[in-house]
């Protein structure tokens, strides 16, 4: 189920503007890969190219290759919709559908992907997803209440449940804790460590301690200079990045000398 992602020489453009240049990396299955770096360096943009969400911006395009296992995500005739069905995403701000109940929120992806499923099967999937997201105990008595009535941290776990209900090959998380308090953040971090036994997780974070706590591999993005495109400076085992990075810029960033 968990899939490997391989990125080769990826350039990301908005019209003629080159936003991110020359990213190559391999993301291993059943691991957490964290992407860190200063604001505006293109790490979120890069993350959104992995499920082709960046294409929602008119004029956005890429050069280079992204493979998920052996499937070329940017190959000719590949539908971005089908890519997104295999790669789940969790956003910076919790975004459960306000017009749907908790149950409907979790079932939303299944309704899209397969359509028909027996009520009892759907019940099972919803329960399993909510349990995986450590939310079941808190919401099992109010599955028919609106998802927007939950706290921010609960809403974010609901969004994670919604994303994993369709059993995606990869789970992308774009600063999933930046709108949450420390306790909710810890709940999400614990959850990531549990989920990585089944999923490939890529997380963008501004919080370096978070990257150090949850990830196996860390990639550091930086701008080459003012007005220059962002680039992947280095990517390595998290322990190595945070102890003996091979690049001076990485060391400056994680030791707090800039950014």
């Amino acid at each position: 189920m968990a899939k490997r992602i391989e990125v080769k020489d990826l350039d990301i453009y908005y019209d003629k503007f080159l936003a991110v240049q020359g990213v190559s990396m391999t993301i291993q299955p059943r691991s957490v890969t964290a992407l860190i770096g200063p604001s505006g360096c293109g790490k979120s943009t890069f993350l959104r190219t992995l499920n082709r969400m960046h294409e929602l911006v008119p004029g956005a395009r890429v050069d280079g290759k992204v493979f998920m296992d052996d499937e070329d995500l940017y190959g000719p005739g590949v539908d971005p919709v089908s890519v997104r069905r295999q790669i789940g995403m969790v956003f910076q701000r919790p975004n459960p559908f306000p017009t749907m109940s908790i149950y409907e929120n979790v079932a939303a992806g299944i309704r899209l992907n397969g359509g028909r499923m027996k009520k009892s099967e759907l019940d099972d999937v919803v329960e399993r997803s909510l349990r995986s997201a450590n939310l079941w105990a808190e919401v099992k008595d109010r599955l028919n209440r609106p998802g927007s009535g939950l706290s921010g941290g609960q809403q974010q776990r609901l969004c994670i449940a919604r994303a994993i209900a369709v059993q995606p090959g990869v789970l992308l998380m774009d600063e999933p804790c930046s709108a949450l308090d420390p306790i909710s953040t810890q709940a999400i971090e614990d959850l990531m460590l549990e989920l990585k036994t089944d999923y490939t997780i890529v997380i963008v974070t501004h919080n370096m301690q978070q990257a150090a706590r949850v990830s196996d591999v860390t990639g550091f993005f930086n701008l080459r200079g003012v007005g220059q495109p962002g680039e992947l400076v280095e990517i390595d085992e998290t322990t190595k990045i945070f102890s003996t990075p091979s690049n001076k810029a990485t060391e400056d960033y994680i030791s707090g000398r800039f950014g």
Partner: protein
Amino acid sequence: MRKGSTVLPSTERTRSRRAPQRPGDRVFSGLSTGAGVLILVVLAGVAAFLVAEAWPALIAPADEVPGPDGIVLYIWPLLFGTLLAAFLALLIAAPLAVAIALFITHYAPRRIAQALGYIIDLLAAIPSIIYGLWGIQVLAPLTVEPAGWLEENLGFIPLFAGPASTTGRTMLVAALVLAVMILPIVSAVVREAFRQTPRLHEEASLALGATRWEMIRMAVLPFGRSSIIGASMLGLGRALGETMAVAIVLSVSGGVTFNLISSGNPGTIAANIALEFPESTGIAVNTLIASGLVLFAVTLLVNMAARAVINRRREFSGAN
């Protein structure tokens, strides 16, 4: 310094002391309260006028009011005609308005969307008498042939029982004209609601692998639901009260019928008032005003029903 602001004020005093009032706040709250009260006063005034003027007709003996069988049987066909024309117009206009709004907000390239938006807003500025003239001179003749076809092939449905009108001055044409008239306001309101669908929710559904249409069904339409109902009520209100266009287009004979394509149609309350008022005196005027009172009450009821529908799912509205 005020008395209360000693170092350790008693709890009693702290509680009773009110937050300082700033003049700007006072003026603004006074203005907005005044505006709110004013609308209620105007509404109450209209209601009082209608009741007072309608009263003589309501208590008059049946043979004094116009029409053969008393006031109830005088007003009932008019009310029926009003509701039939207005709901039919809404049935045509509402889906069209939603589709237009979706096209403008989610499908059309930005330039075309903007131009189309202006054109539709422009439709709202055309006086209703122009719509009426267009209805009778252009639209009505065009419908004569299709109406004949409907009578021949779908005549078993009571709506198209016929005999098809040879002038085209039918309930169907009146409803079509009304639909075109209410289209701009309905689509403008719905368009603004769709435009405000949070980007977050659109992205949430797209990231799950929704196609554009699935995204619209998951995020845009549910979010805009209360606005669609509200906009429809605005349009319905306009259709219920529309006078000139209906007065020009509709050929009235007074019966209560669902037959949409014949020349024997029930009138509508507003058009009937416009047509009859210049010729009326005494109790006949009171009767016309009584019909206006009925229209007023029905409009109020329709709006309250719509409000109730919206509130039923308030928790799920996304406004929290």
